């Protein structure tokens, strides 16, 4: 339910008697001048039951002129000119309308009318006051009476809890209408002047349900200014959000507000992607595991501007083939992190490099056990520096099974020599 925007209605007001706002009308009325602000819907739009609400006030202009001041109505007039309920009646037409009326003794009337083939049926409330807002609820209920009943409930408060009167007219024909009036003149009924304010017409129409069998395309949402409300589509089945197409430069990003867990859809790119997509996140994010089925033909490049921490490489089970290794392609200088092994390392790590590399000096802190083996096997003499004796010692050893020496690697490794 939403208030009618009067600026979208057709205004026929050559004398400029009506000031039209989005939800308000100010009328400097005169029954001698034709004017109307109305909207023509499709034929039969107002069919069956309906309930419209609107508020109205007649200002005290210090003169009682017996003016008729219509502030709601329905008809089937479509002429692109000012309409008048008085003229519809005189032409033996059909309409429904509600009007204020300046009675004698400073009473402000509210009168409800059915005009059926020029014949008038009415009910009225005649104890209203000037400068007082009346909040009306106009209802047609076709189940009451042979052709239905038109009611106008008049309230004195905006929340419509204080009922002043209920006007009713038993309808004399069942008729659908197409034109709704925000205001209309009562032309031509002498020069009866008045000052009236009307606001907040709400036709209380629910969204129409269209039954479609094929795909539908929802129109683009255009918003000028600041949108204070967002639109909610109620869907009962699975929905597929359409691809986002942006031509030109997008100045705003779209934010989806989600309260539950969400799964971002897989990114599919056909052809060559000319632009990359950037997700702006303010909280911590966790990138999903990279899963590749089949042979990956391309590597993925993340461009980062800040510090990053690559996650530890975890391998479950035994890595079987060389094709399973990961190659990081880097173009700048890199510093490989220190290799830390806790427990017993059963495998060594090898780096395969294609270009020139400079391996860092091997530094071992503490006592390292090293094995020496000779390609030829057999026996050999050796000389090794003993830190305990602070001297070189020589000897001979069988090296078929290898020779195990304890060497203080703070000394130079070349001081253990096979002679």
């Amino acid at each position: 339910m939403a208030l009618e925007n009067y600026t979208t209605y057709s205004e026929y007001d050559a004398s400029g008697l009506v000031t039209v706002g989005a939800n308000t009308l100010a009328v400097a009325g005169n029954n001698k001048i034709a004017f109307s602000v109305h909207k023509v819907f499709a034929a039969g739009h107002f069919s069956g039951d309906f309930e419209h609400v609107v508020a109205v006030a007649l200002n005290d202009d210090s003169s009682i002129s017996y003016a008729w001041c219509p502030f709601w109505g329905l008809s089937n007039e479509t002429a692109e000119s000012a309409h008048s309920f008085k003229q519809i009646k005189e032409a033996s037409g059909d309409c429904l309308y509600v009007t204020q009326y300046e009675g004698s003794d400073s009473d402000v009337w509210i009168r409800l009318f059915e005009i059926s083939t020029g014949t008038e049926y009415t009910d009225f409330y005649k104890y209203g006051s000037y400068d007082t807002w009346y909040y009306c609820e106009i209802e047609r209920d076709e189940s009451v009476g042979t052709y239905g009943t038109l009611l106008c409930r008049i309230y004195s408060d905006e929340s419509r809890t204080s009922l002043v009167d209920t006007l009713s007219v038993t309808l004399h024909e069942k008729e659908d209408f197409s034109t709704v009036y925000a205001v209309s003149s009562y032309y031509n009924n002498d020069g009866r002047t008045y000052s009236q304010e009307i606001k907040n017409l709400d036709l209380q129409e629910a969204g129409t349900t269209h039954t479609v069998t094929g795909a539908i395309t929802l129109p683009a949402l255009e918003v000028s200014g600041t949108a204070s409300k967002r639109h909610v589509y109620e869907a009962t089945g699975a929905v597929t959000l359409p691809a986002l197409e942006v031509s030109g430069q997008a100045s705003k990003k779209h934010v989806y507000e989600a309260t539950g867990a969400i799964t971002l859809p897989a990114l599919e790119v056909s052809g060559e992607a000319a632009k990359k997509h950037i997700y702006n996140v303010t909280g911590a994010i966790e990138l999903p595991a990279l899963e590749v089925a089949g042979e990956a033909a391309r590597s993925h490049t993340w461009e980062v501007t800040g510090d990053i921490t690559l996650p530890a490489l975890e391998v479950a089970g035994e890595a079987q083939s060389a094709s399973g290794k990961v190659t990081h392609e880097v173009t700048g200088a890199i510093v490989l992190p220190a290799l830390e092994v806790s427990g017993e390392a059963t495998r060594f790590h090898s780096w395969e490099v294609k270009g020139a590399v400079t391996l860092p000096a091997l530094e071992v802190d503490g006592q390292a056990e090293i094995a020496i083996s000779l390609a030829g096997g057999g026996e050999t003499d050796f000389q090794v520096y003993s830190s305990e004796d602070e001297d070189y010692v020589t000897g001979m050893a069988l090296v078929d099974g290898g020779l195990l020496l304890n060497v203080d690697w703070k000394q130079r490794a070349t001081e253990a020599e096979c002679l």
Partner: protein
Amino acid sequence: MNYPTDVKTNADRLAFCYAAQERLRLAHNVVGAWYREGIVDSKALATLPTAWQKSLSTASKDGVLSETAWKEFKANAYDVAEKDVIGELGAMKEAVMKDAALVASVDLDKTLSTATAEK
């Protein structure tokens, strides 16, 4: 809608319909004030139809009538009762207007002694 046994003619019934509509309006405003102000006077509550007293007392929480309870009352209690009365009122209006005997009894010379006030 039920009429008292002593209300027999269409004219009496029409008058009774207007009176019933007015009682209904006053009852509506008792409930409206209850919703608006969050409190209801026990004497005012006693003027409501018994069924309304029971359903509204059940619907109220800590003596306050919620918006939901108010809308429920409007749609399912008041509007139904109002249309019951207004439907009968419309029928009685038609019946009185088309009362041939009454129309025949009108002497226009005696009746039209003053000008109509309405212009």
